């Protein structure tokens, strides 16, 4: 394969890996929004929190796999606590109150990690056997990124099964379209809300651990990812999982090819993409409501 094609493919893999991680974050965001009507500003903060948890687990045990297992669950647990003890109490004051509450949660998490872990970049080492290049068809792929893509696909598969093939998934989907009606049918909707919020933050947590060895762990980690995830959710349409997936992949590729070809414009490329889409479809590509 000639070098130009190799470059295209390599950038494609990078973009795909970022897009996949982006989807993990955005999927939680969009499910929570679709179901509870809450736009969780703190979502990216949970993403970062999980990366820090993973670092801490690595410090204690040195085992990346344990970090991948434990850190997202811990982040999800924090998410559950936030939903149960904070968000639920302000539900009565309407969506704007909830939105601003999540701003408060974000500020607290962002600053708390600085108190506990300082402001320097912390390194999370990837497992030995993923720290190499995989040769395939005359090309070299970084194994870790392939692993990230694979991991995300597996989780995506599990989520799809859970959401579309189980009774629980049915309840969640029903609650997305009409929470009051589901509540009237005798299902404990607040409990489902708590569960969904936990799963959403858990997904963001997995993304945080997955990205930690690539970008290192630092307090600004959430800024870029949070913004990109919001763009994905807005462009894909609030509450649409399909939209989030497609747009996340597009955004990932846009980022990596953007840096390659129009490096000057790369930081604003996503915003231009968003402005163009919203100009034609104010509700996003697959959005059905505001």
């Amino acid at each position: 394969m000639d070098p130009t094609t190799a470059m295209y493919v390599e950038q494609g893999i990078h973009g795909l890996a970022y897009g996949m991680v982006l989807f993990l974050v955005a999927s939680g965001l969009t499910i929570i929004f679709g179901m509870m009507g809450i736009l969780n500003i703190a979502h990216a903060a949970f993403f970062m929190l999980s990366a820090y948890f993973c670092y801490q687990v690595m410090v204690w045990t040195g085992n990346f796999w344990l970090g991948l297992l434990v850190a997202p669950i811990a982040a999800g647990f924090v998410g559950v606590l936030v939903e149960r003890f904070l968000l639920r109490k302000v539900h009565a004051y309407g969506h704007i109150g909830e939105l601003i509450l999540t701003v408060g949660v974000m500020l607290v998490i962002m600053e708390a990690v600085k108190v506990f872990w300082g402001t320097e970049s912390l390194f999370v080492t990837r497992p030995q056997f993923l720290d190499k290049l995989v040769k395939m068809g005359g090309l070299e792929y970084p194994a870790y990124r392939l692993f990230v893509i694979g991991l995300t696909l597996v989780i995506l598969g599990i989520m799809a099964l859970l959401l579309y093939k189980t009774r629980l998934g049915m309840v969640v989907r029903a609650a997305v379209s009409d929470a009051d009606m589901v509540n009237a049918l005798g299902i404990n909707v607040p409990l489902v809300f708590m569960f969904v919020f936990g799963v959403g933050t858990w997904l963001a947590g997995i993304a945080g651990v997955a990205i930690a060895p690539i970008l290192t762990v630092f307090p600004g980690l959430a800024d870029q990812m949070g913004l990109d995830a919001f763009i994905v959710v807005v462009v894909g349409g609030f509450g649409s999982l399909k939209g989030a997936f497609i747009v996340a992949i597009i955004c990932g590729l846009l980022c990596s090819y953007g840096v390659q070809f129009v490096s000057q414009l790369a930081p604003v490329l996503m915003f231009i993409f968003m402005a163009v889409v919203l100009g034609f479809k104010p509700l996003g590509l697959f959005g059905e409501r505001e």
Partner: protein
Amino acid sequence: MMNKTTKWILWAVMLAILVFYPSLFGIYYTNVFVIFAVFALYAITFNLLLGYTGLLSFGHAMYFGAGGYATALALTHIEGCPLLVALLIGFLASVVLALIICPIVVRVSGAAFAMLHLAFGQLMYVLALKFRNITGGEDGIGGFPIPPFDIPGVVSIDMADPLKFYYFAMAVLGMSIWILWFFTKTPFGQIMVSVRDNANRVDYMGFKVPQTKAVIYTFSGGFAGVAGSIYAMFQNLITADGALHILNSFSPILITMVGGVGSFFGPIWGSAIFGIIDELTTRYTERVELVMGVILIIVIMFFPGGFTGLLGFIKEKWFGKESDKAAMEEAS
């Protein structure tokens, strides 16, 4: 209730406090007061959107920044640019920015409005960092000359003196706040509140909702620009991190929520409370945002009306019954 004389006395007392404040508290607290006043105006313009019209913006900093950058650029590049012209340029820059953005944002509301602002605000932040030769990148624009306040033939006051700048800033900010207050008392201000409460009904009554929102939006943006402009002149510096950063979009939210959303004077209380908290916490910890986040959560959970709501509650509890009794006695 309050008769006219007491009202005038209150105004006079407030004016006297403003005039004698610098000589009472010294120059350090005078500077703190200017920052407080800047953020009070900034938060009031934000509250015009959130409290009055029900539009939550996560990117209000872009108007603050636009005003600041425009003023800084005018003072740097235009030789002998008068003070008031620089201020006007800051105001107009924000108005123009608002006019560019409002066709897109007035069609949506709620979360979509907030998110669009988050994105636009961040776009401005990135642009300010990228266009290094205009905005100075991370360093921002600083060290521009502050011209004297000059009315030809009448008066010329040197603005480099912080004390004189204090009076100038107070005059501008006070006037802006008064204009906005007047604005909310006009019939148009009533439509503003109706848009928040029931946009469909306003539409049925024959008022144009998107256009109404656009006018309020432009007003709000323009006066946020005035706040930014004064801020830039006061600091003699405007940076992307100081003015356009997302935290600067969150600070009017915090101030408005703590002060009392929907009440016109709430943000002023909020700005004062935050000024005091900031003064106190910076002595003990660098993590001021942590304290503010905790305060925000507590306020939303327990005092959704903010400080003015709390005041109203106390008034009701301690003074309400007596007035009720008095009213009943009068009735019988």
